[in-house]
């Protein structure tokens, strides 16, 4: 599949399409693939709530878009691209695996995050504005910044020079983000409809939410361990 999209990219002379394809290619790289799979699990734990799952996929992708666009803005206004890319690419790849394992352990309620005000803020956003998708959104923001070798080169080496030259400018990082999130959007779409089929059965299963959360937490830990295996 990577070969197919690389061929399309080679043939593309339209920067908007190229940015989207670059995003798609990035999503097939080992690092982004791992974080996207974890994200699908995270969003999918809302299994019985179709709307929530669909919104989760969209908001996760919007979170990624926010990081990519903001980063592009910073670079656009003259920040030293070498310094920023060097920092994010070198530390991002070291942090992704521990980050996934850490999120998994927090989801298992084995560790309490010592930031009560942060929890309060997230809870308020969810409650008052009915913004239930804030967590997937934040996950997207963080995962987008966890650059590794492949995604780092795709974003800083290929997308940013294209963005700086193209009249479409900041639309390109947005389309890049869409490309990186399309797998998640499609998976959540599939999940939502798959769950819809046996939602009445799901409602009968007691403590379903707890078991889904534990399952997803284990998924995060496994993804983190897998990522370590890839790295070393």
């Amino acid at each position, binding site marked *: 599949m990577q070969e197919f*999209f690389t061929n399309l990219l080679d043939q593309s002379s339209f920067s908007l399409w190229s940015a989207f394809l670059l995003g798609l290619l990035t999503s097939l790289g080992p690092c982004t693939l791992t974080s996207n799979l974890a994200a699908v699990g995270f969003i999918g734990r809302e299994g019985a709530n179709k709307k929530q799952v669909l919104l989760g996929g969209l908001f996760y992708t919007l979170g990624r878009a926010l990081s990519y666009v903001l980063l592009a803005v910073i670079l656009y206004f003259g920040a030293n691209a070498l310094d920023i*890319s060097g920092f994010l690419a*070198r530390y991002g*790849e070291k942090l992704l695996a*521990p980050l996934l394992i850490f999120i998994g352990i927090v989801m298992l309620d*084995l560790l309490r995050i010592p930031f009560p005000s942060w929890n309060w803020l997230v809870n308020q956003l969810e409650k008052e504005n009915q913004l239930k998708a804030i967590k997937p959104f934040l996950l997207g923001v963080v995962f987008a910044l966890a650059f590794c*070798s492949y995604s780092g080169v795709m974003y800083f080496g290929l997308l940013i020079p294209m963005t700086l030259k193209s009249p479409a400018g900041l639309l390109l990082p947005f389309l890049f983000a869409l490309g990186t999130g399309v797998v998640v959007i499609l998976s959540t779409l599939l999940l939502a409809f798959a769950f819809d089929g046996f939602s009445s059965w799901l409602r009968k299963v007691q403590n379903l939410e707890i078991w889904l959360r534990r399952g997803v937490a284990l998924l995060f830990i496994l993804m983190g361990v897998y990522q370590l295996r890839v790295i*070393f």
Partner: protein
Amino acid sequence: MRFFLIGLLVTVLGACVEQTPVKSDKLVLPEQGQIGLYYFRTSVRCETCNAIEKIIQDELAGKYEGDLKSGRLVFRQFNLDEADCAKFAGQFDVVFKSLVVLKDSQQVNLTEEAFLYVLPKPEKFKAILEQTIDQF
């Protein structure tokens, strides 16, 4: 259970710190007229990096074996996790994993091509690498 999992986290984080370091080659430029194939890496490995390294090694052991022996071509790899090396890499505008081909005052950075093509189209990356070396 709680302590077991927290222990796992600590072990994993510890493993991240304890990476097998790769020693850099001598931090020098190629000699006058010599082609340098300079590969900058870090201690953290990745699937793409491994694939790039394999192709470089295959080329050095194959098509460029003679050039390597005669000294027309020199291959050096550097670990950017070493402070001296990071400073040395600065002169090539390199801050992260990169592949640079250089001769005298000319240099070509092949990082983007390497990462873009090495997994889906390794033959294309190989062709670009050979073309770049041969043009010198």
